């Protein structure tokens, strides 16, 4: 096996090394409306190698490293020369010493079942009353990983990653569209697509977002996970070591929420047993009632900070709140379901995005709005979590978030619909 030959070459040259072997078998289907526009397949096989060089300088122990990739079809001479080149480079990397993973744990392998892509497409509702799927793309990858290192670690992961992107279009005075993406390990269900279509119908009737002040903003859908990237990254060992965060255990963050790192979220395409170092990932509570209770870190940064490692990031989970989404709509509010690109800056806490579809409501009636933006800084906002949950990418948590203290930038006219 090629991995064994690489390991042999590495063992002869360096003290410590690791290899992540990844094989991907993928199917890709591209549709315009309900017709197949292109089909693709892929098979790739790579070896991601890290070599470590230890050296002393002025009495201090350093560990240099260098990462490189070995591709199938590389000749032995080319591999040898790559190894030499990276050993040479690693000697200039003066990082404090840290160990590689050397604890062996045996856990039952996750053997996920393959999502039935053909069935999903057969049942896909490409059109409905006044709204249709303009185009869609389906990517299904079977990923198999094996991680070995110089300390005898030999572990593996297997996962299916389904990624669906679709554009829904509706027509009123003019055609409008909304963008949707889903990433997970199980197929989409009809109801999710119908909800997307319904939202698109609303966008077709939307008016410009009004210029409103001191109004609670309700985030719904994907932007909720993005919002929580601030506490997620601020509690990472990497951010703390790099001085991008000065949070420590016992510090408080705004709002009232509890967050976990969880490698085994059902349905997530990011769930796995072992991280890229071969470390057995753990479920750990990071924030409890908005107070930092743990720092999450891979083996290297955990060693630097003198804490227990949790492994590289897989999934993050925020526990849901007690209030229903519906109750967030008592009184005046602006609820946003779709942004052009909602972003949270995990260093500064600044967040915002342009509104593609939202609803402006007064507790009794609501009107769909589009355009304008919301912005703010998480350290100056308060927020409440809904009791309904969602799974988007590697985030599991509340479906909605009601924020006070965000700014809305809209058009200077009040909608006469309300």
């Amino acid at each position, binding site marked *: 096996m090629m991995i064994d030959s690489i390991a042999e070459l590495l063992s002869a040259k360096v003290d410590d090394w690791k290899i992540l072997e990844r094989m991907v078998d*993928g199917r890709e289907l591209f549709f*315009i409306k*309900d017709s*197949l*526009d*292109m*089909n*693709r*397949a*892929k*098979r*790739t096989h*790579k070896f991601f190698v890290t070599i470590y060089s230890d050296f002393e300088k002025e009495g201090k122990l350093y560990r*240099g*490293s*260098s*990462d490189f*990739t070995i*591709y*199938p*079809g590389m000749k032995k001479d080319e591999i040898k020369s790559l190894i030499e080149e*990276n050993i*040479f*480079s*690693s*000697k*200039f*990397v003066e*990082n404090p010493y840290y160990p590689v993973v050397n604890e062996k744990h045996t856990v039952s392998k996750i053997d996920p079942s393959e999502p039935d892509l053909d069935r999903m497409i057969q049942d896909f509702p490409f059109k409905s009353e006044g709204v249709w799927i*303009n185009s869609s793309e389906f990517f299904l990858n079977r990923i198999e990983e094996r991680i070995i290192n110089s300390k005898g670690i030999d572990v593996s992961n297997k996962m299916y990653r389904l990624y669906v*992107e679709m*554009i829904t*279009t509706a027509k009123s005075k003019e*055609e409008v*569209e909304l963008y949707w993406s889903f990433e997970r390990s199980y197929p989409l269900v009809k109801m999710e697509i119908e909800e997307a279509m319904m939202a698109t119908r609303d966008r077709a009737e939307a008016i410009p977002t009004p210029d409103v002040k001191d109004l609670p903003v309700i985030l719904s859908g994907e932007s909720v996970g993005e919002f929580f990237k601030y506490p997620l990254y601020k509690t990472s060992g990497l951010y703390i*070591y*790099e*001085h*991008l965060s000065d949070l420590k255990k016992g510090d408080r963050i705004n709002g009232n929420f509890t967050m976990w790192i969880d490698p085994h979220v059902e349905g997530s395409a990011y769930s796995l047993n072992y991280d890229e170092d071969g470390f057995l990932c753990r479920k750990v509570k990071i924030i409890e009632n908005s107070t930092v209770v743990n720092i999450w870190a891979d083996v290297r940064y955990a060693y630097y900070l003198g804490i227990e490692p949790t492994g590289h990031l897989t999934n993050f989970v925020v526990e849901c709140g007690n209030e229903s989404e519906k109750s967030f709509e008592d009184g005046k509010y602006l609820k946003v379901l779709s942004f*052009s*690109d909602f*972003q949270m*800056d995990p*260093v*500064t806490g600044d967040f*915002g*995005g*342009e509104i*593609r579809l939202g609803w402006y409501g007064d507790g009794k009636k609501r009107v769909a709005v*589009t*355009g*304008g*933006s*919301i*912005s703010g*800084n998480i*350290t100056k906002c308060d927020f409440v979590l809904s009791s309904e949950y969602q799974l988007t990418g590697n985030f599991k948590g509340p479906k909605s978030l009601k924020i006070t203290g965000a*700014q809305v*930038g*809209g058009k200077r006219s009040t909608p006469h619909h309300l």
Partner: protein
Amino acid sequence: MKVKLSKFLEEKIPDLEKIVEKLSQKYRYVSILGNDVRGKRYLVTEDIKITDSNWNERGFVVRVYNGLNYSEYSFDEIDDSVVDFVNERVVGELEKFKSVLESPLIEEEKENGTFEGEVEILPEEIDAGKKIKILSSLRDRAYSISNSLANFWAIYEEVNVSKIFLSGQKHLSQSYVWTQGYLQAIARRDEKTKYSYEGYSGMKGAEILYEMEKGVEKVVREAESLIDSTSIEPGEYDVICSPDVSGVIAHEAFGHGVEMDMFVKGRAKAVEYLGREVASKLVTMHDGASAAKQVASYFFDDEGVIGKDTVVIEKGILKSGISDLISSLRLGTRPTGNGRRESFERKAYSRMTNTFFEPGNDSLEEMISSIKDGYLLEKVSSGMEDPKNWGIQCWILYGREIKDGHLTDRIVSPILMTGYVPDLLKSISMVSKDLELSGTGACGKGHKEFVKVSSGGPYIKARARLG
């Protein structure tokens, strides 16, 4: 120094030609793109990292005309199974689908060609030790300038690109190097953290490392001054956009908006506006691999079409879109050399390359003195488009206040610029003589399919909604 084609690709040509020949017995069009992209990224901050560049790849993609449209197979191991796999698993699965959208057959003309880029210093001429030493000296200098710094990043990335394209009629090869550098200063006072950055990029070699020195003090001082920045009051303002902000407006507004695969899908509003006024008369905009010498310059695209310079908007009139090969066949237009893939593992789409506004006749000073109440917008963080409904969003790092024709000391940060594309472009009232392109970023289609692009332009004065 000339950049030579990858030896690996050269050696694989006979095997690939055999695959093309075998598949051509069954399919009326067959092509293979072979990519070997090798690069390294050096990061010096609190610690040091040497990793492969994220742009690295080595593999092949074969495209065949299956009788109705096109099927593709991406692979990185050449063996006897490739032909069978294409026949059985790729083209073979077409019968599962009730409806298949037909595409015209690609009719090629004979074309052979080779391109070797040239740089001052090939990346391999400077060893890793020296690269780390230069970056470390930039970091150390930054810390000597300010004691407000929480962190400082100095990043250098070198990418050596080799590609071959083989089909019945074409035999093309290209090899070139691009590099980029990045400085980021993170300043903190009390509880407030702010950062600034400077980027360097080009069809250059390791010489870019020596350009980065001049940015250290600027980026540190900017990060320090941003700690005292305030939030902007949302509203519409007269603004001057710096060349990088102009570039992102060009990219988001009428770059994504004229990607012609969107025309095919009926997703681009621009199709109704071809030949019509979409911007101020002061606006002329280009896109093309040969329109500028920056990180998105190449000889041929990922479908074997030679790169071009496309005038998208000329004096405010929308003239042309940018197209991949299959979209151009469906639309009956000429391909513009904009068929690009994230890597050999991905599909080709209509994608931008080097996108920019042409310079005008005004000076920055004249532009500032013409504004009573507005902002000079500097440094762009990201952008997003809405090609169907012409919304635009740009995150801008900061704005310097202009009052009564003068810059004040007040800085607002960050800024979210949003608006309706024609409103924004028609409001352009002054254009400076400068022209700068930057290629430190990457462009996605939707939220994936990242390709290297550059964008830029002159300073422009416009009216924009800021929040």
